[in-house]
């Protein structure tokens, strides 16, 4: 399933880039993160409990940075394992300057394998859309925080 969009962020590109490339700040964006561990600058791991209302879906997600061209482009791969579900996601973003603001074109290819992927088709897309919405909302907040801290 591919989701994509463009998000305007009210901060200079450098600030946005820093937020997006700091694993610790990234962790704050993700839903249901219970613990977070950085292995090296290209690899990190998160244990999450994706909130699904009826009880969270626990997953361990390994992240790997695939490509980056500071300060405009990066791509990232995430592989998650949990009982009943396997998550494979590649995501990328491209930042461009829009005056004082930054425009972020993003895309994510999300694949969920396993029984949950097979069962939950009709609910997964809305869930993914919604989680993406949450992440973008959190990103906005995090960028504002970073901007405020930097200024």
């Amino acid at each position, binding site marked *: 399933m591919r989701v994509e969009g463009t998000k305007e962020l009210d901060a200079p590109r450098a600030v946005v880039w820093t937020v997006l490339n700091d694993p610790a700040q990234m962790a704050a964006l993700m839903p249901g993160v219970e613990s977070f561990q950085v292995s090296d600058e290209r690899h990190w791991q998160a244990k999450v409990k994706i*909130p*699904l*209302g*009826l*009880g*969270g*879906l626990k997953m361990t997600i390994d992240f790997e940075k695939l490509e980056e061209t500071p300060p405009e482009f990066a791509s990232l791969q995430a592989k998650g394992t949990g*009982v*009943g*579900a396997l998550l494979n996601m590649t995501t990328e973003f491209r930042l461009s300057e829009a005056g004082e603001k930054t425009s972020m074109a993003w895309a994510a290819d999300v694949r969920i394998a396993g*029984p*949950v992927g097979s*069962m*939950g*088709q*009709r*609910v*997964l*897309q*809305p*869930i993914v*859309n*919604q989680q993406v919405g949450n992440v973008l909302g959190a990103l906005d907040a995090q960028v504002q925080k970073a901007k405020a801290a930097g200024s």
Partner: protein
Amino acid sequence: MLLREVEYACPDTVEEAIDLLAANDGARALAGGQTLINVMKARAAAPEVLVDLGRLAELRTIGFSSDGMLELGTMVTTAQLVASSEVDVARPVLAEVGATIADQQVRNRGTIGGNVCVNDPTNHFPPLLVALAATFTIRSASGERVVPADEFFLGVYLTAVGPGELLTKVSVPTRKPDSGDAIAGVTIGRHGTYIANATASVADGGVRVALGCVDAVPVRATAMEAALDGDFSESAVRAAAEGLGATLDPPSDVHASADYRRHLAEVSAVRAVLQAAERAKAGVT
């Protein structure tokens, strides 16, 4: 088919239920269980504690508030609602829709509270209750709050009911003279799961339209509502619905592409509004 280990409690009072929900991280209220048990069988979700509401008789009542709202306890079963004379008088569309939910066995166990709290995008009651401008009473140790339908549904399996809270009742405005409600949609098989649906409620020359199965939560067709402006002629309704599909970002699955869902949402909205208006004119809902 086989659940993960789970702890179970069966409280005798609402207060006790709320205490149990608050005291146990990962606790879920168990109402009819017609979705929750299934999700647990798949081990797609695994609450650590189930708080069974089965003995809470006070949540099984159907009645009226002092201001004339129809009040449905969270544990009112769909079958109970379908057979209720109060519902038949106050808001018959609830029974009409209830009678098409799943099957008789599920209607005998499934509850209105469970149906709305699950908020599966294909569930019948969430869009209906949005169209009917229902309110939801949520209780916690710190008291009671009332949430309007437009703010109740937050996501798939997610509602305004937070940890340590319990939905105790759903309140629906009783129908006014010259009002009409209707649901239209396309299902997988007859009386099956919805692929897309729309509910319309016409009253006082205005209309509320809510779409189901097109997003994580019911979607109000506000532009269409505004465009109608009291004219419920077929041409006006069709004109008002035009472009509605294009505003949606529905899921695509084995039963329907996103495009087909957009189309069905539009067709369903037209049909629901026309039928609701017809019923309003005829004085029946």
